[in-house]
């Protein structure tokens, strides 16, 4: 299928960004590269229109990651951009993902702003709650509440694993209002009750911040409350983005492993000629391609409500697992070097094992998928 030149040009811009800006961050010394430069990477992303913001004048407003084009349904380019960036650094990609998604939610709520936001959706311990009941939307279990009391708006919310970029200003806390509808509330990132898990205390995704929210009857200005929000769509896009990042991360690991296998000579031939190495790379290929295909199908066949959620849950579960499997195989290609920081395979692996849990445990997703039925797969792919 032929592509338009715009699509190609956009992809090339993302690739340049990934290689030149993100690659530069990762290319420096240190376990995860130069993390002090993350803010400037985000600045470039804004400048180059890589990521959306909620300001109509910004470069990425329409065609950045989760820009307004995705409101009308075409999410493929955003997912592809996330994967391309993730092939260099999954942490940066995760930051772009949540920043773009928050911008999209703000735009949908007609809130114009240049201030970066992050989305606080999932709750402890595993985000999705208990799945022993009949198939329901996984968001039925959310406990966060915003309620009118004594003429004031009060917020009560516990959220964990809120991903954010360092220059985040607001958190968009998803909760229910008195009528039971999902709404978003903007909370200052510096508010008390919001804490940060240091990058050194996590396995990976170091370029991205991880926040926790514990708000107990916080007072909320009426303007901070956004209108009703499609939380199910938000969650589905969140999962799909994570899935794309997982695939991209694995593609990056494969790139490094392939390069090593074709350069490293043993017994007179490149190790890429050894069946043992071919099997590792081939297994990685199978895992990556199945994951990529699943994400692409889920993105293309985007439906509504529970069906869309089911597809996204499927994609996140498959992509993250397959990607982790691929990355560990690629690391193995390098043997001892794969285990050392400087070859960066270990970074891909650390990020990959984190991504396996982002947004929910695989078994919970699988059970949700089973319980939400779904048509026979062959038909549903049409």
């Amino acid at each position: 299928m032929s592509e338009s030149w715009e699509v190609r040009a956009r992809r090339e811009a993302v690739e340049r960004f990934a290689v030149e800006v993100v690659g530069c961050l990762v290319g420096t010394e240190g376990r995860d590269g130069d993390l002090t430069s993350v803010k400037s990477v985000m600045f470039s992303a804004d400048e180059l229109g890589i990521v959306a913001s909620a300001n109509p004048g910004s470069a990425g407003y329409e065609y950045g990651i989760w820009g307004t084009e995705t409101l009308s349904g075409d999410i493929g380019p955003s997912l592809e951009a996330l994967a391309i960036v993730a092939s260099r650094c999954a942490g940066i990609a995760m930051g772009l993902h949540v920043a773009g998604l928050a911008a999209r939610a703000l735009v949908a709520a007609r809130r114009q702003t240049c201030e970066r936001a992050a989305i606080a959706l999932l709750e402890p311990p595993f985000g999705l709650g208990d799945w022993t009941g009949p198939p329901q939307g996984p968001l039925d279990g959310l406990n966060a509440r915003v309620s009118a009391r004594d003429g004031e708006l009060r917020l009560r919310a516990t959220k964990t694993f809120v991903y954010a970029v360092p220059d985040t200003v607001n958190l968009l806390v998803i909760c229910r209002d008195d009528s039971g509808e999902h709404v978003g509330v903007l909370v200052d990132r510096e508010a008390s009750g919001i804490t940060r898990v240091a990058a050194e205390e996590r396995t990976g995704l170091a370029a991205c911040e991880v926040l926790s929210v514990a708000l107990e009857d916080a007072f909320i200005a009426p303007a901070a409350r956004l209108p009703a929000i499609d939380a199910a769509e938000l969650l589905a896009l969140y999962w799909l983005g994570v899935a794309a990042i997982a695939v991209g991360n694995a593609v990056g690991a494969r790139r490094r492993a392939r390069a090593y296998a074709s350069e490293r000579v043993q017994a007179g031939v490149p190790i890429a000629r050894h069946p043992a190495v071919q099997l590792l790379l081939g297994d990685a290929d199978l895992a990556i391609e199945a994951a990529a295909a699943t994400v692409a199908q889920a993105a293309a066949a985007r439906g509504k409500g529970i069906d869309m959620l089911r597809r996204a849950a499927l994609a996140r579960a498959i992509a993250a697992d397959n990607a982790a499997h691929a990355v560990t195989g690629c690391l193995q290609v390098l043997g001892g070097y794969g285990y050392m920081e400087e070859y960066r395979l270990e970074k891909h692996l650390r990020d990959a094992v984190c991504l396996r849990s982002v947004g929910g445990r695989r078994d919970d997703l699988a059970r949700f998928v089973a319980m939400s039925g779904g048509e026979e797969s062959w038909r549903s792919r049409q």
Partner: protein
Amino acid sequence: MSGSTAPGEARARLGALGRLLYDVRPLTLWERDTETLSWHLRRYRRRCRRFAESYLAPRALQMDRRPDHAVCVELFLESARWRFQTELLPWPLGSGSLKAMAHSFLFPAALKAEELCAACGGLGLALLAHDLGIAPLFVSGDLRAILRWQRAIYDEIRAGEPAIAAFAITEPGAGSDAEDTEGAASARPTTVARRAAGGFRLSGRKCFISNGGIARWVTLFAAVDGGGFDSWTCFLLDQTMTGFQVGRAERKLGQRAADASELVLDDVFVPEARVIGHVGGGWAINRNVLNFSRPIVGAIAVGIARGALERAVAFCETTRLAARPLTAYQDIRLKLAEMTAKVQAGRALVWQAVRYRLPFQASGSIAKSFCGDMAWEVCTEAMALLGEQGYLRQHGVEKAARDARLTQIYEGTNQINRLAVFEGLAESDFAPRPTRRPVS
């Protein structure tokens, strides 16, 4: 006649002998497994666990964050006081039990490795790598090496000195060559020894050497006079020798508490007396050391996996979902049981591997590769069980996963080990038909 179907209560409805035959004691698997051991090994296993829980576990997270040679040396000395660093010779030369060693040379080492690494894979490796450094001395079967060098090192240790040993085979750009028959046949070693008056002069580099940065003694392999791996010879070096330098320390994914350094040899003179075994006998010593050490790597992997499982269980007991602890949920129970089974299988395989009179190539590689894969699986499943919490350092589970990943790589990648399994059985299990029994 009415009552519960729970095993304990159902048992009460049996006669006396029936109750005797029905074992419902609330013992841990650890205790059950210990009960199957001889009296000596039982005591030894408990001692290993006490040491590991007292000294290693409390330092595990901090040493992962910020590796510190001084702490390793200090722990080595403490471990030596517990008699864990001089076990490759029996009393009075070392602290091994002659009876246990005669019965199964490697069983104590397997028990020790699991316990240390259940507490911390990195510190465990740091303490265990010393035995690996010593191993060539006795595996060479060179009585001179044993009685002169091994005894001398053990005497130093028993005198309270940090006479740590290291084992140096890996060379830059040739990781797996030194662990594989085929690789070795065609590759050229780059660390070489030239004959000189009264000894040899060694030049070259070794990399990824566990304890390389803190070891006083190094059993190092070099090719002699321009030969290939078949000319490999084992030398006992000490780090005070002129021209012997420690290069850079690697920064790695896991087992971070354990040093992995480069060793640089710049025309180091090594006297004749420090040749271990025969000149040209190095390759055989190396291969047989791997036969001895690979089951122990299997035990390291089992320990790391068990540590991850125990930490995951602790998380599931203390974390609540909809007012019930996670352990009340069927899916969590299924997963914990499955992980438990895998760890048990790994341990059983290692214990079987150390029951053979002598280790041999296939058994060591089987234990090492199976347990390495098992440990990575169990640790990543443990991480997944905790959800996003799983990647927080504080729970100790993600560290176990990072630690476990190395067991699939060192002492030969698992691929190299699988080829070693085939090679080791090429004339028996995988021999061409006529010599084997017919199949229906």
